[in-house]
């Protein structure tokens, strides 16, 4: 039996680093298939009448939410093309920055040549603390809860808020975060449809609510879902880049697990030989 040496962690890290650098310099561009889940989310947004108000609401950590941003950015682009309107409701301290990042990257504002005008087609609110209290209060009476936008403009002067008073005016709630608890209030209590651009680690968590409210809650799965949404909208963003490197990394994960098991096997043989 050939003796297989135990690899040091550093050796594995060097290999992995090389894989990432390689895919960054030479994108492989492996095509991927469309999933039914992403298609359902896309179709729902597509079916909304122009002028409908969509909320981008949730709380989370930007770095984790970067995964959700792939699908969220593509969805914002889609919403702008369809003539939908968007209100960003930050429920976490980093959510303002994350939501600005998504809107800016989607290039939907008129300053980037997009169709959206701030205050008319989209608006960003300041961070509202309180978690569930903020969501429930927002759904009950927007104008009682919020007085200004993130830049300090009174919301009474922003045209978009003339059509947004309470949960009855919301056509769709999108959540690009881990905020599965929001489903309880948004869909559970008020019956608003929801699309969660779930991170891969949170998909199982979200899917529970998708099963409770079939045809009301839809999910995309992590970077793959993001890449699929990007494909539907016709852009190549972070989702595509992430799936490109993942293609190769997944092979190396399998390779190292097999190597680890071969090492285990060879060490057992070695022990047997010593006993004999």
């Amino acid at each position: 039996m050939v003796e297989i040496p135990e690899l040091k962690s550093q050796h594995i890290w060097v290999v992995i680093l090389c894989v990432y650098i390689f895919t960054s310099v030479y994108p492989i561009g492996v095509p991927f298939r469309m999933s039914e889940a992403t298609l359902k989310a896309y179709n729902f947004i597509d079916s909304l009448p122009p002028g409908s108000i969509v909320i981008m609401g949730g709380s989370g950590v930007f770095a984790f939410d970067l995964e959700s941003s792939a699908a969220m950015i593509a969805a914002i682009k889609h919403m702008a093309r369809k003539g939908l309107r968007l209100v960003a409701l930050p429920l976490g301290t980093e959510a303002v920055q994350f939501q600005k990042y998504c809107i800016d990257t989607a290039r939907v504002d008129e300053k980037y040549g997009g169709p959206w005008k701030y205050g008319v087609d989209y608006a960003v609110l300041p961070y509202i603390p309180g978690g569930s209290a903020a969501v429930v209060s927002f759904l009950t009476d927007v104008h009682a809860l919020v007085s200004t936008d993130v830049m300090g403009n009174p919301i009474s002067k922003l045209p978009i808020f003339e059509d947004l008073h309470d949960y009855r005016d919301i056509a769709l709630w999108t959540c690009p975060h881990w905020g599965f608890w929001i489903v309880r209030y948004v869909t559970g209590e008020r019956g608003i449809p929801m699309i969660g651009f779930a991170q891969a680690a949170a998909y199982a968590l979200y899917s529970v609510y998708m099963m409770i409210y079939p045809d009301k809650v839809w999910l995309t799965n992590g970077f793959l879902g993001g890449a699929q949404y990007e494909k539907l909208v016709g852009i190549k963003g972070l989702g595509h880049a992430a799936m490109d490197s993942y293609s190769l990394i997944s092979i190396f994960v399998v390779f190292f697990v097999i190597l680890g098991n071969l090492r285990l096997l060879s060490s057992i043989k070695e022990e047997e030989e010593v006993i004999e």
Partner: protein
Amino acid sequence: MSATLTYIRTYLVRVILIIAALSGLVTWYFVSPQADAIANELQIWNTAAASWTLFVGIITIFSHYIRSVMKRERYWPYQLYAMILMVLWCIMGVWSGLYSNLYQTAYLSTKITLHIAILGQLIFFFISGVYRTFRIKTARTLLYAFLALIMVVLNAPWTQWIFPNAEKVTFWLLNNVGMSGERTLAITGGIGGVVLSIRILLGLEKGALRATEEI
């Protein structure tokens, strides 16, 4: 503080807690415009009062770092640097505005960059970890490692290209096997959460309200 005052204080806290909790429950289970108005006002008060807690972090960290720098404790130069950075950052942020492009660029180039890099590094530790731990010694390891690897492979675009139905298998596993475990956690967690809430209302669970105890 005298025992009587502590007693009054403790019970006042419980009264606030019970009124606040019942406002949320009453408004949902009974139709009452008055109860709705009270509940909504209390929720707005909650969001407003909680906004002050955004400043708790800087007070805590400054009091800790100042003490550490004065005593020249380990890493004090880094802490001094952090304090200077915090002050400059606050000035820059308040001056330029949270939604300005300058602030956004600064935030993305520092905090977010660092956070993504730190989380991204986990892949290195993860892969060296699976090399060592996914060694099939028991049935449990076999099940765990096999399903984890299956998911890794099924999510990869190349697998979906070779096996067109791979994506369907991924979602079947996620929506059935994965969801079942999470649903169990949701049910058990929900029951636990309700029990905990009742204990809080009955004053049996003090939790964050330990501050009411005599120091």
